[in-house]
């Protein structure tokens, strides 16, 4: 009979091992880097302790109960009355545990998502299948990358003009849905610097799996530098190649869908590209932002992220080279 518990015991060991091993690489909720994630991880470890105790004790009861009567004809009697057993095990003990869980719920949810003074406001709009990000007080837009200063209260307004999405950065906190016709706000703080993976957590259609983003939590000073740079319009291209690329951008269909501040490109269907050269990834965190991937994305993004709303752009190799040089110069 001991063998019957072995897979589960093994699984519990695996749980701890895997969480311990993988958190370094994974966007793990037990590797918290934000205020909300910290609180919730605390709740989790409390529940993990209780759950383990409950599983081992009740699981033990099941095994013992199953084998206890072996070798007898009619089973072994017990002095405990059935109703007493059921009341204590099924109602009284669980009720005590549930009160603890209830208290943890109230305690944690009362401390989270509260308005604070002087927050940094950010607006995020869920698109199919990427994220439009804007800083209303600093008055600039970007996409798929949210920069925040560590320690300062953050207020992210969440909206959608299409289907429902959900904003989730596991290392910073829980999810908040982006619901058409409803404005949600998520309030939190980052406690550590780092680049954290964010994901769309509500099924939103074809490319739901490739609707991800990054949150870059940085020191207040480096955030200010970053924000200040973004408030400036783009200067003229520095090289001839980039200048040619700008011409290609304005001539090709690009400008119809994308905005580059300081130019005549004001499209709003696709992501704002004003800082595309400084972003870490392309296609909503689908591929790294390298020269090769950028060229590939422009020529036919459908091979990288099938079904996304950007059509293939046929360009001569010279035009493509110039365009890539231009886009990569946009920092």
């Amino acid at each position, binding site marked *: 009979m001991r063998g019957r518990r072995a897979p589960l015991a093994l699984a519990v060991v695996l*749980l701890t091992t895997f969480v311990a091993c993988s958190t370094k690489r*994974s966007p793990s909720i037990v590797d918290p880097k934000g205020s909300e994630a910290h609180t919730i991880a605390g709740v989790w470890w409390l529940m993990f302790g209780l759950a383990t105790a409950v599983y081992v004790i*009740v699981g033990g009861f099941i095994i013992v109960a*199953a084998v206890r009567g072996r070798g007898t004809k009619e089973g072994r009697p017990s002095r405990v009355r059935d109703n007493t057993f*059921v009341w204590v095990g099924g109602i009284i003990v669980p009720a005590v545990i549930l009160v603890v869980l209830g208290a943890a719920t109230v305690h944690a949810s009362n401390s989270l998502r509260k308005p604070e003074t002087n927050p940094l406001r950010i607006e995020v709009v869920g698109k199919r299948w990427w994220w439009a990000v804007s800083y209303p007080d600093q008055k600039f837009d970007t996409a798929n990358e949210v920069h925040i200063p560590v320690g300062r209260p953050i207020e992210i307004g969440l909206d959608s003009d299409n289907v429902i999405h959900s904003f989730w950065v596991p290392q910073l906190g829980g999810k908040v849905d982006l619901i058409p016709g409803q404005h949600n706000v998520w309030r939190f703080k980052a406690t550590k610097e780092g680049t954290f993976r964010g994901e769309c957590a509500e099924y939103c259609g074809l490319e739901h*799996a490739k609707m991800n983003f990054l949150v870059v939590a940085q020191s207040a000073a480096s955030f200010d530098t970053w924000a200040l740079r973004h408030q400036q319009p783009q200067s003229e291209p520095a090289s001839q190649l980039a200048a040619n690329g700008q011409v290609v951008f304005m001539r090709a269909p690009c400008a119809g869908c994308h905005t580059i501040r300081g130019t005549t490109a004001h499209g709003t269907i696709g992501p704002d590209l004003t800082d595309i050269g400084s972003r870490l990834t392309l296609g909503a965190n689908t591929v790294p932002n390298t020269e090769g991937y950028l060229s590939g994305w422009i020529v036919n993004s459908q091979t990288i992220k099938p079904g996304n709303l950007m059509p293939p752009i046929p360009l001569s190799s010279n035009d493509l080279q110039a365009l890539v040089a231009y886009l990569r110069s946009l920092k």
Partner: protein
Amino acid sequence: MAVTDVPSQETHGEVDAEELEEIWADAPGVPGFFSTIDHKRIGMRYIYTAFFFFFVSGLMALVMRSQLAAPNNHVVGPETYNQLMTIHGTTMIFLFNTPVLAGFGNYILPLQLGTRDMAFPRLNAFSYWIFVLSGIFFFASFLIGKAPDGGWFGYVPLTDKAFSPGINLDFWGLAIVFVGISTTVGAVNFIVTTFKMRAPGMTINRVPIFVWSILSMAFMVLFAVPAVTLAAGLLELDRLFGTAFVNPHLGGSVLLYQHLFWFWGHPEVYILFVPATGMISMIIPVMARRPLAAYLWVATALIAVAFISFGVWVHHMFATGMPVQAMSFFSAVSLIIVLPSGVQFFAWIATMWKGRVRFTTPMLFGIGFLLIFLLGGITGAMLAVMPFDWQVTDSYFVVAHFHYVLNGAVVFPIFGAIYFWYPKMSGRRLSERWGHISFWLMFVGFNLAFFGMHILGFLGMPRRIATYPSGLGWDDLNMISTIGGFIFAVGTGVTLINWFHARWWGKPAGNDPWDGDSLEWSTTSPPPEYNFASIPVVASRHPLWDQRPLPTASSTGDEATKSLGPEGAEHHETPETTGLDARPQGTLDLPHPTYLPFLLACGIAVFFVGLLIKAILVGVIGAAALVIALTWWAWRTEVDLA
């Protein structure tokens, strides 16, 4: 009571079995197939049809697991993956779990109550035909390559015309409305049968726990299913006729849809789970050779859960940004609903504790169920903790949780129930040895497949993704899960083969292969069309253990008892008894086989096809057939038919 307990089991022999056979038998061949209203044939069909859907939908799960076995995999693209995911969820909930339990209820419940059929046999047949036709309707989408891809929950606005313009989603929305008819009609039948058709002496506190569980399920169905019918109905009105109930871009409410969907969706979990616990509550006492501990508390828990399950639905919506205070109420109720399950759990343990457990295949599935459901219940309580839910909702942690509950804690009891009751249904036993092998494959495969998903959720893997990049620490666990999924599938396949084998070559079961306590074990295996020539008289919660030989009733000639004895069977009747005390009260004429249920169901199917393809003429033809069949139905009373 106006019945005597003098004529005993032996009097069955005096009844002319051949004559009864002639009175009750269906026509042979195809006419009998379409006109039967025998609850046992219908119950078997429910089970077979539901298992067909189980295996098809399980194969789809294997394709999904293959796709997720490795990062950046290309087994299927996102479009196909999303379709498979939608069909898998919808099929398992609507076309496997719900109907297979209705099938067992259909077959077992009248036998356990000691009656000759369900209260409304024609309605019962109708309910089955609706189920199978709606299943065909839904799967037609897959066969013509237009499978829905909006997820099994069909959230708007993704499923609105604007974002899902094809006919794909109409298959889904209409199928949900369509199959809901079947579930609702079945629920009415279960309730009336339980209250009005119990054997004399089977007072309300002597009813087998399985019957209590079906009753609890039926009440939940009655109040919950209209909500999902409304949700899918409003969606289809928006899609087909351009209304704006749930279309936010025209001023409709997205959350209205979610509220309606989950107002059904959470009770639905209990609609599936409660009958499964009822099966366990029959299997464990028989295998431990002693009565179920704390019967009254278990029955109370089953009813309590039916009420409480209607107060928890918002825990599926904790991330929608509703006010925290409002959601706290649902958080608290979601914790409280643990208690009725706790009562049942410790009743099972107490039953085993003082008994001697026989490790038969049904019992192995029972113990497997206990070990799996324990974990699924614990993670369920965790999900009630709102802040924790914000982190893990819509992650693989939830996928793990609900597979522990809906697969482990529902499918395992169902497999146990096959081994337990199939001998009654067919007269032949399944192989114990292959049953053990099947169980261990399923148990190990199940835990390999789903335990790691808890961890994947912790490592930030969201639900419903068709692929994932490498380097996030998700690769190994996904591979293990896929391997486990295939082992689980092989385990279910072993039972399938075992089942087929038993059908023709199984060892004879006899009337009572497990030494059971409830009335179904008192009749032959398989039972005759009329179940009982003479209705048993019950004086105990465990008639077959406490009343040997089991007394049966005979008529005393008055109106109340005239259907109890063999004469009742000869007149195609079954007794009606009072709701609480089960005193003989009157006689119910049972209808004879009829095509009406099939015709009515076909009319409804044609009507739905008309809606689907937006062909008014087809819709009108369907509606006309429906009206004609209904009128005919109402015209021909059961007495006319008898």
